[in-house]
């Protein structure tokens, strides 16, 4: 009660954000939930929305491309999430060393993250060019004939996963800040006890930055399942649907085939999948995430 006045002021302050949330997030979400049970071709306007019950979801069961896009997306997420996390943590560890010119290296590793995804994709198309791309030219130096990365259905998805490694700058930065928050005295104490570098890493560093890992894993999962731009620009789902990511399929359904109802149903299924995986990670977090403040309660 005593706070009611300042509370009210607080609501005024968050009002712009709240309005935005209601209008541009909650509102459209509710509308798309309605559409998920409807048929709508967009062109003919809102009056042509037709209620079809669960039809969209039934269609999914028989939709070959739906399964294909799920498969592609799951493979991508299952490989890329662990790969990117380990890679960015390793790079962050390197960048956390106190060497001369470290700022320069930090800059180098972060730089790709500020390049727009489309521009980066165009560049990677050239890198992946089977004949003239620098990747295959580099491989040729070792006598390896590189594959047609983006034109061969067995390599295209792998190529996109490899390419993603280049853009982990954001994750690196977050790990780096996590690493810098680990108190120095813990390492000093461990050194006195004769702990080696691996022991220090697994017994001090990893537990201390586990909240950061937790955050990055969740963001990684969400990002992985929502992968879109690069596939849209570089392969458009091909060759032979080998890079037909879920979001790309959803987009095609909505804006190429004009099946907005079906696309909305797809988006809700994706939402539930992401939610399930995120909850799984959150539930498991009590087993492996360590918060410094917590031990006082124990």
């Amino acid at each position, binding site marked *: 009660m005593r706070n009611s006045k300042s509370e009210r002021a607080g609501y005024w302050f968050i009002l712009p954000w709240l309005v935005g949330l209601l209008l541009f997030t909650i509102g*459209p979400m509710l509308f798309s939930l309605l559409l998920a049970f409807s048929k709508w071709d*967009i062109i*003919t*306007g*809102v009056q042509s929305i037709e209620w079809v019950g669960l039809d969209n979801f039934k269609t999914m069961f028989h939709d070959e491309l739906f399964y294909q896009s799920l498969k592609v997306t799951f493979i991508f997420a299952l490989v890329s999430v662990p790969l990117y996390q380990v890679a960015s943590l390793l790079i962050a560890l390197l960048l956390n060393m106190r060497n001369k010119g470290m700022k320069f290296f930090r800059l180098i590793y972060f730089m790709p993250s500020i390049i727009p995804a489309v521009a980066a994709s165009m560049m990677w198309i050239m890198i992946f*060019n089977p004949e003239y791309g620098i990747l295959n030219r580099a491989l040729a130096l070792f006598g390896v004939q590189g594959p047609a990365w983006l034109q061969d259905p067995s390599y295209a998805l792998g190529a996109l996963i490899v390419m993603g490694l280049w853009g982990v700058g954001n994750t690196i930065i977050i790990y780096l800040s996590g690493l810098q928050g680990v108190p120095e005295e813990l390492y000093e104490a461990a050194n006195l006890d004769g702990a080696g570098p691996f022991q220090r890493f697994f017994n001090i560093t990893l537990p201390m930055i586990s909240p950061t890992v937790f955050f990055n894993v969740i963001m990684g999962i969400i990002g992985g399942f929502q992968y*879109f731009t690069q596939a849209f620009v570089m392969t458009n789902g091909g060759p*032979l649907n080998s890079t037909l990511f879920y979001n790309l399929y959803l987009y095609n359904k909505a804006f190429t085939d004009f099946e907005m109802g079906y696309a909305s149903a797809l988006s809700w299924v994706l939402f539930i999948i992401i939610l399930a995986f995120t909850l799984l990670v959150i539930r498991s977090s009590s087993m492996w995430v360590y918060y410094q403040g917590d031990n006082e309660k124990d």
Partner: protein
Amino acid sequence: MKKGSASLVMMLILVFVLSACSSGGSNSAEGGKGEKVKLTFSVWGDVNSGADEVKLAEEFNAAHPDIEVKFEPIPSEGYGTKLTTSLAAGQAPDVFLVGEGDYYKYVDKGVIEPLDDYLSKDTSFNLDIFQKDLIENMKIEGKQYYLPKDFNPLALWYNKRMFDEAGIPYPTDEWTWDDMIATAQKLTKKDGNKYTQFGFNAGKWEYPIYTYLWDYGTDIANEDGTAAEGYMNSEKTIAAMDKYVSWSQGDSRVSPTPLDSETLGGDSSMFMTDKLAMMITGRWIKGDLDKSDVQYGSALIPQNTDGTRSSIIASAGWAINAAGKNKEAAYELVKWLSGTDAQKLRSANGKVLPATVKELDEVKAKEVADKPVIEMMDYAKKPVTMRSTNGPVFVEEFTKALEKVLLGKQDVKGALDEAAKNVDSKIK
């Protein structure tokens, strides 16, 4: 971009809802005395290519004191999406341009106003001024929905320098497909085991394939686009496609595989850099070719041994938004944009071919380079996308099958059998 399309879909939906709510109040401006009728119209393409349209809009405004028209070009890349979403939101332009592949689709959705009533009331304007085939293409189920902006028949384009270098005579009117492939063979060269140039491009683009299939007396669909079984996988189609894909397969290929063309930079840039000797494509390619220093000529698309020859007229038609508020005025605008003066203006420097008979005859009389292209009009037929609302399904499955074949994942018969089955189950 990370948030991806799920949130994009949601955003767009909201925009529709909001605009649908608000559009009710904004049209009160009409009817007031001295108030001008406001119109907008859109085309795809970059601003430069719209220069003629800007001029036409200015002239239209000067000639019609009671109407004020505004030209709003849309970049080619997002044209379809932009148009669709604005149609949904009730914010679409009064007049817009549609490509031949989409003629059926938009009419089917009921967003295009038929022009017949306006035309029959209008004694000052007669469709006879236009090329008959072109006008026919813009008619759907007996009704006139579009009026022509410009058109581009498919023709055979050849690289003169490559022919000269090999000492081979240019394509002739009598050429059969076999003649062309035999010549393509001579123009395909290897350096070691790497191809350095190709004679022809038999890719997966369906338009040239249609012309070949038609010459063989077959098609991927029946006439009204309701059946694929027995058409897409008929014996004739399979035999023809076996041959067509063989041109871009194996060690004696004369046409780049998808991988080759990726490696060498894509078909049109290969043509411009003297790495591709012949290609079948529409006249729109001319704009790009003229910017490069390639020396090219055009010829008739080869015929079958029995003299059958086919082409497709790619075209762009003006359409009136069926939900527009000033359709009478919009009709005036469409007339203006497709009429004789507009055709003259656009074709003045040879950029496009005029859609009107008289002006085209004039071009024919003095143009040498464009003569075969214009002649190809007489052989034009309608692809399935211009015959049926099911068209896109046929194209999608056919292209997918072709992709599998070209990547060596399946044989022609297997892939086409499967595609035909898929189409029929989808369009039922």
